[in-house]
Structure formats: structure tokens, C-alpha cells
């Protein structure tokens, strides 16, 4: 039986939904499922992991000092060492914002093949499905090697409970900060509780049609009422209305929400590259001929400055 290690992401000490989705994906093939937890695992977290089918919870016991705990080189070293000690055959991690600076480090340390941003994985054949060429092509990539690694796109799989007997072990991390790679400061943003783009269920996105930075704040207001994340087109970023961190598209974040709602976005091929896998797209645009109006699930033709305030009022 394969031994699969799943790198669990927590948020305020709780297991993220998207992490549970990875367990469900890994459990499709009979395997001994290990949850690798770097940031401390309490009984509640253990129970949740057990409910979704984890047989061994592995506490990597990372030091709590942020200079150590937030250093991606320290994290990757801890994960890679645990993978070797536990003799894992397969590693799953989230292709999230943090995962993109973590999973490939683990792969590089282990010199193991990796596919990031997997939409699906067949563990019988070690074939991952991912999108390439700006979301225009679906690629099936087969990995070979002693250990193979898959970065799973958040929300690719909905978690399904599948209770198992769980034991907890500790494989302590080295907790040594490399002298050549030191974290000196970190900024968790003005509002760290704001839902992250890559993992949001709903994204409210604005583009050229918002016309200026002040108007763009309507997008933030609407998103807050829906508990949604904020996205932006490249135009909105280039105009300086929002920072690059909000950009969705070819050269921005690739997102996979349940619902993607656009206001004043025309829908360039590069924008679609970042959001075309959304389950539902609702497009609000003045122009009936905008590309996005032909490739969405609901088209709302109208004035963004009438509909957006109305929506905020009714929510």
C-alpha cells in the first residue's frame, strides 16, 4: 500500500477546508494517509483529520518564533526530512499562495518530480491533470520516481468525510534557520482575515469599467458583504487602483472559486486564463459585446454604478 503524506495548511490553528479536499482526493486510491502538520496540531485538529480519513497525524513541531516558522526554507527542510524518515511514496500539498513558495522547495530538496496546480490526480498511474498555456490546454502529466509530489489547486476537490482510526506521532523539525536565507520582516496585509484569492468561494472582481480608484472601493464593499475575496483585471492594477496582489489572470493569481462575479471586466483571453475554471461566472457589464458576456453563466447588462450599489444595499 502506498504511503501518502499530505501537507496540511492551518488557519488560526484550524484545518483549512482546502486541506481536507486534498485528503479526499488522496483517499480515492487505497493508501496509508499521513497528515503532515507544521504549525502545531491540537486535539480538535486531530479529530477533524481523523474524520476525513487520516491514519497518522505527524506533528513536525516547528518552533513558534515567526522568524523560524515563517521561513520557507525551514518549512521545506522539515517536510523533506519527514518525507524521508517516513519513507513516503507520494506527497500532496496545496498550490496556494504559501504553497507556491513551499511545495517546489520540498521537491527541489528531495530532487523529486512535481506537478503544481493539479485539478485532479490519478494515484494508480501517478498522472496529474493541470492546465497549461494560459488555461487553454489541459495536460495530463505522469510522474516517475521514488517519491512523487503533487501541488493541488485549492477547491479542486470538495472534502467528503470518511472516518478513520488515527494515531499521532512527532517527527520534530530541525528548526535551524540557514545562515544564507533569513526572514527579516513580514507583513500580513492591512486585513489578514480577508479571504485569500486562491481559496475563496466567491470572488468579486473589478476592471476598467470602474473608472478610478475611489469607485473600485465599491468592489471591496460588495466583497465584504458577501465574505468574498477581491479580484482585479490587469487594467485595474496597471492604473494603480489596487495592488498587484489582487490581479487575476495570466500574470496574476489563478483562481478556482465557486462563483466569480465581474464588474466592468471585458474578459480578455489573459484574464480568462486566471479564472476560467470557476464553477459559475456572473458578468456585469455595460457592453453587451464584451467577450465575457458570451462566456459566462449569467450576463447582467447594465450600469455597474447602478447595480453595484444596489447589490451592496440588498446584501
Amino acid at each position: 500500500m502506498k504511503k501518502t503524506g499530505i501537507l496540511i495548511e492551518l488557519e488560526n490553528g484550524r484545518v483549512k477546508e482546502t486541506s481536507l479536499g486534498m485528503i479526499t482526493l488522496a483517499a480515492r486510491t487505497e493508501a496509508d494517509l499521513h497528515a503532515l502538520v507544521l504549525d502545531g496540531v491540537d486535539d480538535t485538529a486531530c479529530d477533524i483529520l481523523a474524520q476525513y480519513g487520516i491514519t497518522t497525524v505527524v506533528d513536525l513541531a516547528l518552533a513558534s518564533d515567526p522568524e523560524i516558522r515563517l521561513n520557507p526554507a525551514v518549512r521545506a527542510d522539515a517536510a523533506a526530512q519527514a518525507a524521508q524518515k517516513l519513507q513516503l511514496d507520494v506527497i500532496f500539498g496545496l498550490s496556494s499562495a504559501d504553497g507556491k513558495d513551499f511545495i517546489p522547495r520540498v521537491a527541489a530538496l528531495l530532487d523529486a518530480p512535481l506537478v503544481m496546480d493539479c485539478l485532479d490526480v490519478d494515484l494508480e498511474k501517478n498522472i496529474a491533470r493541470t492546465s497549461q498555456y494560459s488555461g487553454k490546454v489541459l495536460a495530463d502529466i505522469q510522474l516517475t520516481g521514488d517519491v512523487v509530489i503533487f501541488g493541488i489547486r485549492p477547491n479542486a476537490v470538495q472534502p467528503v468525510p470518511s472516518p478513520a482510526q488515527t494515531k499521532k506521532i512527532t517527527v520534530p523539525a530541525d528548526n535551524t534557520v540557514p545562515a544564507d536565507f533569513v526572514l527579516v520582516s513580514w507583513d500580513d496585509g492591512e486585513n489578514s482575515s480577508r479571504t485569500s484569492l486562491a481559496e475563496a468561494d466567491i470572488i468579486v472582481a473589478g476592471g476598467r469599467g470602474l473608472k478610478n480608484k475611489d469607485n473600485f472601493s465599491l468592489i471591496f464593499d460588495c466583497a465584504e458583504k458577501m465574505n468574498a475575496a477581491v479580484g482585479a483585471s490587469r487594467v485595474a492594477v496597471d492604473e494603480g487602483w489596487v495592488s498587484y496582489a489582487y490581479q487575476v489572470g495570466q500574470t496574476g493569481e489563478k483562481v478556482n472559486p465557486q462563483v466569480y462575479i465581474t464588474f466592468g471586466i471585458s474578459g480578455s483571453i489573459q484574464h480568462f486564463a486566471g479564472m476560467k475554471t470557476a464553477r459559475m461566472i456572473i458578468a456585469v457589464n455595460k457592453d453587451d459585446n464584451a467577450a465575457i458576456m458570451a462566456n459566462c453563466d449569467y450576463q447582467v447588462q447594465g450600469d455597474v454604478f447602478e447595480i453595484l450599489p444596489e447589490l451592496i444595499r440588498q446584501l
Partner: protein
Amino acid sequence: MQIYVCIKHVPDSAANIHLLDDTRIDEKVAFLLNPYDEHAVTEAAALKKKAADSEIIAVCIGKPDAEKTIRTAMAMGADRGILVETDEACDSMTTARALHAAIVQDGSADIIFTGKESIDSEGMQTQFRIGALFGFPVVTNAAFLDVTSGKAVVTCELSGGRTRTFELALPCVVGAGRGLNTPAYPTFPDVVKARKKPIKTISLDSLSITPAGGSAKTVALAPLVQKRHPKKITGTPADQAKEIIRILQKEAKVLA
């Protein structure tokens, strides 16, 4: 300083991609310098301005046609180029080994730039593998870089406006993000000058790299067509807003 920039020759993000068969795309489309690599070259050029005795070497693995992309990097500031020629589609493990071997053969790197990812295969990992092969520290999605007295201070972006600032010893590997700078597109004289700069072409075989223990192989490609059939939401703005909320609650079930 000896500055290496690893670049990739990729199809234009606006190109329509057609498939020749199950594993190959039709390459008769416009190819250009990977957009993130533009930021990498731009940052290398900015660094050279501060340390005038620097040399910028653009390194690329690909088919002979990739020379065009090396010329673009040269027009943007690279002094010379190295093309590791191969007709094979290489996975990230092989690519990193080839780039590592080509750089080792050429000189001694003080800093290596890459883009944070390529827009064709979107692997997001080659910079880390290059770093591991050299034993250099690596950052990705860099948005700010300052190099002084043997060290680099780099701020990297995560999502949602979160950042991390690292201090790295040189040599190091920096994966450029879009926030790093604004690439200046080459002027005509720059393009002309770039034509005369030297490119060393070496075959992948001649590097005799040790094969990786694992591999990643594309076994199937399929066009991702997701034709949606839009339904119209009409009425007054108030009606339209109400209907959007109804859909979010009842159909998508994402609102309580």
C-alpha cells in the same frame, strides 16, 4: 558581478493554441520572451547600472528558434547569450540540470535571475531546482530587490497583499514577479545592437548531465474549451441585484 538570467521562449499568451496530436502543440504561433523573464532581465539591467563592471548572460534551453528570445533579452540589456539546444521537451528536473551545467561551464554566478514561472508549462519550480543544484538560497515572486555588499535583501509577495522580506547571502537565485519593476521595451537602436552581441550555442548532449532519478512526462493534452451558455438577467438594477443574490443563495449556495 556575473549576473545570469534564465529565460524561456514561450508562445504568446494571446495566441490560439492548437494541438498537433495527443502530446504536442502546433508551434506555428508567435513565440516570445516569457513575460516574467522580462522582469528578470530588467532587474539584471538595473543591477548592472549600479555595478558597472557587471556582465549579464542570458541562458536559455530550447530549439534553435529560441535565439529570437535571447536577442530580445539582449535588446533589454543582456550582454551575451547561451543557448542550450535541444529538440526534446525537457521536464523541470532536466531543464534545471541543463541550466546549472551551462552556467557552471561558463563562469561563476553572483546572482541568478529567473521568472517566477513560465506561461506555457506553468511549472513554478525550476528556480528552486537550480538553487538546490548550486546550493544557493532561492526566493520567488520577488517584488523588491536591493543588492549591497555581498547580500541581497528581497521582498516577495504572497497573495492578499502579504509580503515577506528576506536577507540572502550571494550567490542566490531570484524568481522575478510582476511587482519587481516595469520592463522598458527595447528601442530600435537596442534591437540593432542586440544583433551583434554573441550567442554561444551548445547542445544539451554535450553538457552530459547526470539524469534525474525521477521524471515528469506529458502523456496527454486536450484543448480546454469550456463553453458556457449565458442566461440574461434583466430588469431594473434593483431587480438585477435581487436576482444575483437569489442565484448566490439558491443555485450556487455560497450565501446564507
